[in-house]
């Protein structure tokens, strides 16, 4: 029986894939991981918080009683920085209900916090996507190519890591100009090295495997080896890093906004809401308290979910 060369290569490739699956158990791996994840209270708590936040962001117009930038002076009988008024807790019925009070521009704080979830989630998602794509590309090239290219790329990453990250982010935003988009870029740049390093380590470990050598012997191009063999097998730790990265990104972005370098008024962004009213902390603490709680809850959700995922995907860690 004669088989065409192409067919033979295909067979070999499939077999290489099967052998990989046997040894690295990717088939049942995700299902097993899912089961382990479900068994963890903290991971599930994180998931609930994150899903809840996504729902709040999606249905913000329904949940928020007012528009985020609606100035209520003249509309209702209220004054600047009125403290929270909740009817259920004994606030008189004739005063309009504002469960988190009003800010310095007589806007409903609760509505602004609800809309703020859209800003934070979008920012976290895009920052991490950008850092993940660019970082892991650098890492993959560095790890696969080796030699001087590896050396140069990794020294550049070392320089980025050589700065305290907030400091470098501030400097980058100073160059690009303040604003949410530039803050996003700055945070993506300072978090790049983490992804690059993890990807590089993965590539170094995987490229020595027999199935990669087999692919190379069969004449696959570098590009196809990277895309088909190495990257799919190195995703696990990157997924975990990315989830935790959302938390970091949101926290750093809030810091930048607090310094006036991130979101600009009148955007309903938690960090800048807090920064604008920070001198009023002694007279109207609610204006500082609630945005901070919102930031903390979001960051906590992603942190817990990321930890849960790490434990689930790598059972050898952290029993």
């Amino acid at each position, binding site marked *: 029986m004669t088989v065409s060369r192409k067919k033979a290569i295909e067979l070999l490739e499939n077999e290489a894939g099967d052998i990989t699956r046997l040894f690295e158990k990717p088939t049942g791996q995700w299902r097993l991981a899912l089961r382990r994840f479900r068994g963890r209270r*903290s991971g599930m708590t994180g998931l609930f918080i994150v899903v809840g936040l996504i729902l709040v962001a999606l249905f913000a117009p329904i949940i928020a009683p007012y528009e985020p930038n609606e100035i209520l002076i003249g509309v209702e009988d209220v004054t600047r920085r009125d403290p929270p008024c909740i009817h259920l807790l004994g606030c008189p019925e004739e005063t309009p209900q504002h469960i988190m009070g009003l800010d310095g521009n007589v806007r409903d704080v609760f509505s602004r916090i609800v809309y703020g979830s859209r800003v934070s989630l979008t920012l976290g998602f895009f920052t991490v996507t950008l850092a993940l794509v660019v970082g892991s590309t650098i890492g993959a090239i560095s790890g696969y190519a080796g030699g001087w290219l590896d050396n140069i790329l990794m*020294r*550049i990453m*070392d*320089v980025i890591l*050589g*700065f*305290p*990250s*907030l*400091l470098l982010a*501030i*400097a*980058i935003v*100073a*160059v690009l*100009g303040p604003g949410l988009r530039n803050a996003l870029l700055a945070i993506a740049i300072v978090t790049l090295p983490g992804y690059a390093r993890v990807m590089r380590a993965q590539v170094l470990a995987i490229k020595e495997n027999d199935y990669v050598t087999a692919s190379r012997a069969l004449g696959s191009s570098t590009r196809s080896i990277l895309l088909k063999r190495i990257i799919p097998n190195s995703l696990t730790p990157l997924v975990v890093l990315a989830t935790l990265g959302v*938390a970091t990104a949101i*926290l750093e972005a*809030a*810091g930048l906004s*607090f*310094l006036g370098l991130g979101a600009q008024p009148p955007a309903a962004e938690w*960090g800048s809401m*807090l*920064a604008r009213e*920070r001198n009023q*902390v*002694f007279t109207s*603490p609610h204006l*500082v*308290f609630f*945005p*901070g709680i919102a*930031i*903390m*809850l979001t*960051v*906590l959700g992603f*942190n*817990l979910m990321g*930890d849960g995922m790490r434990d689930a995907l790598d059972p050898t*860690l*952290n*029993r």
Partner: protein
Amino acid sequence: MISYITRRTLLAIPVLIGIVIVVFLLVRAIPGEPCTAILGEQATEAACERFNEANGLNESLPVQLAVYIKNVFTFNLGDSISFSRPVTQMLIERLPLTTELALSALFIAVLVGVPLGIVAARRHNSIVDTATMAFANVGVSMPVFWLGLMLAYLFALVLRDTPFVLPPSGRLSPGVFPMAYYDVWGWELTQGSTWAKFNEYLGNHFILNSLITGQWEVFWDAVKHMILPAVALATIPLSIIARITRSSLLEVMGKDYIRTARAKGATEGTVVRGHALRNSMLAVVTIIGLQLGALLGGAILTETVFNLAGVGRSLFEAITARDYAVVQGFTVVIAGIYVVVNLLVDLSYAYLDPRIRLE
């Protein structure tokens, strides 16, 4: 070991040079002329020309870079354009505050974080463990500036008539003046000499200074002012240290030699203190070093919240004012400290774990 030290130290040099160049280029890329930022209304073309001439800003970029690198390595960081004072002098005044803040925070983080981690690991899966880890998870998720403001509100306003009242801003109360140790001990220092400057720098560590000279009133006042910022800054590293201590101790407790020690009849205390703890501290030491970067970044936010004139706050103001010399000088010094600390952490790690240096 010596070859490892040499190799690791040599590796840090290109990183340091890279940092100097990146800072130089970033500062030059900040939009807007320093001249218009500093002179404001009076920034006519002729005035700008004179200004640039005086500050060496009309040279080509490579020349400016070369001059700058030469100056950095001779500890001449130039003059602040907006304050018209040497950057080194500003560092002498402002770095000690940040150092004291960062070290106090680290002190709190280690002092509380390590025991918390140990307790959580010893009572694995108990309510104590769950509570500690919940606390640690909330701790890493807290924005430093928010915590700072909330602590200020709580301790300066809510508790103002109790013994727990703490000041919400500043470094010392009005009217409290520390006397530098060299004045207390009557040292003769030549004005302007490097030795005098070095002593001035040391003397500006108010807590240390008042402690060694026994100025207890100043000491207590400085400590009281430091508590809130240090606690705010410590929360994140504290939580991370607690988590690492716990997971690292748990991992070690599962090792064969621990079983052997138990089989020999060693008491639980001996097993934990004598065998497990020492080996689990490796990871903790690394993490403590790595937290320094986060501390320096967090210092910018903490100093802003508590109105402290440290390097973090000054750096932020200098960036907004396009004060090239200050931004360059402060960033290089901070990044330099960071690189050196990381180097020391790596070396201590290699010392503690011989496998590292053989790689």
